[in-house]
């Protein structure tokens, strides 16, 4: 991956122009989600229910399509099943322009209608289309695309909207406050709705048993769009179908909370169209409102395939169809918070799940344009109300992109030693060098004095940047001349004999701990031994995390099999597997489910622990905290004493082991302040890449704001978090286990 200057430039420009507004809004939504879902006693159960309903519905989608057709027709409406966008637009244009001879169609917000670009199709037929959602209307006036799937105009400032109105409506004294701007829009749009001929909505959910559609809104424009027009066209992807009306309940409780942090939005419309209300005749307004005109209403449900049935047959992309488009994965994402949907998005959809939608609907080329922006930090996973493994979808699509990009002209022979993987020969070198980090680290360690000196030499960094896309502004990890495994063997192995030990553990020599940050490995050994554990540090293969992060699934699978083979013997012998690097532990506890047979995955997942989780467990089970280091002894170079600032690793948070370190440190008497940032921005190799260096630093900015001036000792569990914190704060943090382990 030679650096693509235009990509870095585009990201830089978006961060400068839209980044602040997007960051403020999405971080606000994300905090709102955490608070609002936190008020639910049965949050996890509701998510489970929602997931189950979606799995069931997608599983029997053809049957539900037949069923909803019957239901809607029995109610007096029409269902049209459109194969693709062109098919849907042809039907809607014929209905609107020819049959209804409509001059104007008013719309409420619908991402599916954006997907098929129905506005353009109707305008070609001479039908005026008016977006009535205030955010969508602003974008229509500005001729811009949504930057967020729920709040489409979050990238625009109040001042920008005021200027836009002044220009479009030729106003000398334009509205300025949020209140004035809203009332201006309410009035203008109110008039446009009164005279409209056709109303178009999307649908968040559709119950097959009754033909009832559910719309989640706050402004009331969808209600007006439906009520004020005698022809209602609803556009929805086939995946919106659920079996029954009762199935709506968990989604209603989850969707607003997950998206913008509202317990429920102002209006949940449950319409079984054609609706029963009279159609107010604003042209002849002296007539009674209740004039029976509701009986003549017309309803058309346009159900859209456009690639969805093929996604349903694709074992990996199928999960995308469970998405309820709440935007939680956008709001929880560090990269999205910095750049918004104009960079982190495709033709229509944005945020983490967009990779699945765009790959299925538009194709791999569209997904490839932004798929890199998912770093696999996994903070979206617990946020998703239907429990979609969004990073996995991104990984799978990345793997498919890699395989589609084979270019045999590349001079791989130069690097074959470095990249002994199972990937196609033409895969770009940046991807393969990072993906084969274990080999690079091993060789680097063997030749450490030379490798480290060469790595920092200017001309070589420039060459490396050009060939591999690794940014020269980053310090490269320095390889240790003696690996952890070699050190452990040289010291004579375990200090606590197995016979005297309460427990036996294997300290997994993850690549970073074994070859780069050996000190934290030594500290882990000391801490465990101080608590009476018989420790082994055998030579074991890497977990496969680096290749997985690059979408090299075959290579990762083969690494997973090797690592499991090496660990299985220890697990069988009743030894616990203790891991220092959280991203490797997350492989064992999470991603291996996709890479290993189910029983192997479960076996290893159950036996493996984060080192601080393990220390926590030992203390809980009677371990002597006095054997560890209390704050009084001084805590390192920055500040002595008990005050600590701790940044938990993103994937550690997701698998639920981010807080054990806090508990252990507090138990020992430290005063711990925990970072509020979801991910530091480095995310493994992401922040090393030239295209993303500045974005990565921007994502880390909240950490600098929170910890930049602190006199606390900074600790972090991830290697890449450590590199990022060093770059942000100017001092390398230590691992929590280095803080609490007894001195050598």
């Amino acid at each position, binding site marked *: 991956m030679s650096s693509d200057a235009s990509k870095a430039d585009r990201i830089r420009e978006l961060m400068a122009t839209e980044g602040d507004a997007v960051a403020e809004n999405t971080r606000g939504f994300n905090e709102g989600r955490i608070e609002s879902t936190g008020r639910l006693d049965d949050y996890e159960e509701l998510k489970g229910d929602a997931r189950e309903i979606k799995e069931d519905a997608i599983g029997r989608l053809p049957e539900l399509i037949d069923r909803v057709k019957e239901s809607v027709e029995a109610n007096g409406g029409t269902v049209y099943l459109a194969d693709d966008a062109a098919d849907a637009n042809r039907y809607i244009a014929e209905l609107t322009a020819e049959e209804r001879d409509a001059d104007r169609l008013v719309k409420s917000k619908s991402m599916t209608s954006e997907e098929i670009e129905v506005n353009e199709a109707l305008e070609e037929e001479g039908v005026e289309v008016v977006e009535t959602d*205030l955010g969508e209307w602003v974008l229509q006036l500005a001729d811009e695309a949504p930057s967020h799937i*729920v*709040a489409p105009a979050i990238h625009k400032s109040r001042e920008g909207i005021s200027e836009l109105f002044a220009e479009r409506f030729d106003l000398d004294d334009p509205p300025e406050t949020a209140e004035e701007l809203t009332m201006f829009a309410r009035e203008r749009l109110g008039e446009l709705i009164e005279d409209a001929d056709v109303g178009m909505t999307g*649908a*968040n959910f559709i119950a097959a048993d009754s033909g009832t559609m559910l719309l989640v809104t706050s402004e009331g*424009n969808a209600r007006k769009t439906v009520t004020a027009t005698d022809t209602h066209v609803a556009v929805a992807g086939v995946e919106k179908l659920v079996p029954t*009306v009762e199935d709506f309940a968990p989604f209603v409780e989850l969707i607003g909370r997950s998206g*913008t942090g509202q317990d429920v939005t102002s209006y949940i419309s449950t319409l*079984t169209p054609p609706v029963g*209300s009279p159609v107010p005749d604003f042209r002849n307004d002296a007539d009674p409102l209740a004039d029976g005109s509701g009986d003549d209403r017309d309803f058309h449900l346009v159900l859209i395939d456009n690639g969805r049935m093929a996604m349903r047959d694709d074992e990996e992309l199928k999960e995308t169809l469970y998405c309820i488009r709440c935007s939680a994965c956008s709001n929880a994402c560090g990269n999205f918070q910095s750049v918004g949907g104009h960079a982190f998005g495709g033709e229509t959809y944005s945020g983490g799940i967009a990779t699945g939608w765009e790959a299925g609907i538009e194709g791999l080329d569209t997904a490839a344009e932004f798929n890199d922006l998912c770093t696999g930090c996994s903070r979206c996973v617990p946020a998703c109300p239907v429990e979609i493994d969004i990073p996995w979808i991104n990984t799978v699509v990345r793997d498919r992109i890699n395989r589609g990009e084979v270019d045999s002209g590349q001079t791989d022979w130069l690097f074959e030693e470095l990249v002994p993987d199972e990937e196609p020969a033409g895969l770009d070198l940046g991807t393969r060098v990072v993906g084969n980090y274990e080999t690079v680290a091993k060789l680097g360690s063997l030749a450490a004095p030379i490798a480290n000196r060469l790595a920092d030499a200017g001309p070589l960094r420039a060459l490396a940047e050009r060939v591999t896309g690794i940014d020269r502004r980053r310090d490269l990890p320095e390889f240790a001349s003696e690996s952890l495994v070699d050190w452990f063997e040289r010291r004579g192995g375990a200090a606590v004999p197995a016979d005297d030990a309460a427990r036996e553990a294997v300290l997994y020599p993850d690549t970073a701990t074994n070859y780069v940050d050996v000190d934290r490995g030594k500290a882990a050994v000391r801490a465990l031994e101080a608590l009476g554990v018989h420790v082994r540090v055998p030579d074991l293969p890497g977990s496969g995390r680096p290749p997985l992060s690059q979408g090299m699934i075959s290579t990762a699978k083969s690494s997973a099999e090797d690592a499991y083979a090496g660990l299985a013997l220890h697990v069988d012998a009743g030894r616990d597997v203790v891991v220092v690097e959280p991203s490797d532990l997350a492989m064992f506890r999470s991603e291996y489910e996709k890479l290993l047979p189910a029983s192997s995955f479960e076996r290893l997942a159950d036996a493996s622990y984060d080192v601080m989780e393990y220390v926590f467990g030992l203390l809980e089970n009677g371990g002597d905290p006095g054997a560890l280091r209390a704050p009084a002894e001084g805590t390192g170079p920055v500040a002595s004493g008990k005050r600590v600032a701790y940044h938990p690793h993103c994937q550690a948070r997701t698998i639920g082991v981010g807080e054990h370190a806090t508990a252990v440190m507090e138990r020992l008497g430290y005063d711990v302040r925990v970072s509020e940032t979801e991910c530091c921005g480095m995310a493994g190799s992401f922040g090393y890449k030239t295209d993303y260096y500045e974005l990565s630093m921007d994502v880390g900015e909240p950490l600098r704001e929170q910890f930049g001036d602190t006199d606390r000792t900074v600790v972090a569990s991830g290697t890449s978090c450590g590199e990022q914190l060093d770059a942000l704060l100017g001092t390398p943090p230590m691992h929590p286990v280095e803080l609490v382990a007894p001195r050598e």
Partner: protein
Amino acid sequence: MSLADRTTFKRRLDDLGVTVTEGPRSACAELVDEAAGEPAVGVARAAAELPDRVETEPTTADLREAHTGVTAAELGVAAYGSVAIEADRAGTEPVSLFVDRHVVVLREADLVPDMPDAFEWLGPRARDESSDVVFATGPSATADMGGLVHGAHGPKEVHVVLLRDEEADGDAAGESGADGDAAGESGADGDAAGESGADESEATDDE
């Protein structure tokens, strides 16, 4: 309806900025008169339910001019402070929507504890009667213009008139007879969810 539901419902409405007045059914017209602005249009479910000044057979012009729209709600959802407004031939949906203030008349007996109850109620109505219902929670809202504003398209204000059953008036204990489920629920309110703090009410218009 239980006492706990009523307490939860009122607290949620308060969080949402929705005002509430309560009284016996016989006081309905009086309570509506106090809550409605001028001019007012409405849909009456029963004779004498609304004061004379509320136009119950409005023209579209009356609707356009109205400050207040008065309608009944079929159901209240305690945990969320939501009211279920059912569209009908008389124009309940437009009367509740094309106005600045919506005055909602709800019988306490029609309060249910939570969302699943509301959808158990809706299911048969949707299947058998093709009902169209909006669950309205607080006023219309948007945050699309750079700050939270009420009254984006729909009503800027909502007021709920909560009507007690006559026989239970002034004697909450008497309710358990009328409503099989009230006994014993009042102490432990299982639903602490959603009660804390003011709802931020950002606008979410998906689809």
